[in-house]
């Protein structure tokens, strides 16, 4: 079975997206949650590059991918800082323990 370049990249995009979405639903550790968000961002970056490659506009896809890389790094920084503060405040990294709402 011969798989071309684009199909292999689509497999990677969908695979990473699926793993990231599953992780968002299942993972409860705050730091691991930030890592799962990073996996989702990698999927988006790859999708941008692939879209530029397919439509014959690689430079547009690459410039958007650079923007996503910057935004994703900032999300990681802020997310980790919040996880550290939540660890200090709630004495736990479990997102279920961070619920102080009265329902």
């Amino acid at each position: 079975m011969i798989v071309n370049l684009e199909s292999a990249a689509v497999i990677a995009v969908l695979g990473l997206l699926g793993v990231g979405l599953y992780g968002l639903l299942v993972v409860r550790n705050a730091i691991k949650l930030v890592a799962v968000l990073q996996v989702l961002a990698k999927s988006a970056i790859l999708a941008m590059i692939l879209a530029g490659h397919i439509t014959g506009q690689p430079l547009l896809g690459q410039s958007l991918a650079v923007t996503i890389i910057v935004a994703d790094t900032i999300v990681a920084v802020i997310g980790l800082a919040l996880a550290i503060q939540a660890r200090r405040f709630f004495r736990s990294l479990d997102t279920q323990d961070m619920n102080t709402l009265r329902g």
Partner: protein
Amino acid sequence: MYLLLLSFLSIVCAVQVMHTQKLITTAIWLAGVSATTAAMIYLLGAPWVAVIELSVGAGLVTVLFVYAISIAGESTFDPFSVVPKPLAWTLVLIALALMAVQLGLPLPSPEAPYVGGTLRMALWQNRVMDLLLQIPMIFSGVLGMLGIMTSALQPTEEAHRTVVQRQASAQIAEELQDEVAAHSQPESASLPGKLAKEARP
């Protein structure tokens, strides 16, 4: 061929990010995802973006994770998920099926303003607004992190009491389960003893 192999490797690394117990190992597997993604980006004809992704994703983000784990502490707890796993799988498969349908549709190609040139031209001439917006984004991220990390947050008594109560009730529930399991065993455990007594003359 190489791209297919890299695709599977990246998916395997992503699965390990979720399943591994230790947080340091999670950070290493995440670096693996970044590295394989950077290699795929290079094979798709974007070497500069691949270099940026490798240095930022596999380098900077991994260092950030190690720093955060060293401050927050290594945690190996792996509680059950609130969302049932079959439901999570179903939702993910539905989302992927919808994505696959979207990918099958023809992509609209805009009037080609970015044909030719280099990435430098595309960024600094055609997408200059994106770059200018990234500058305040980076500053806001740095200021936000400084604000979060330096604020003197003291846990309120009430919040701390709630967490302690939840942990105590979880521990009590576990002890009760162990007790119930222990009480349900004696009859079957003594059965061989009873049979041996009846068999004696």
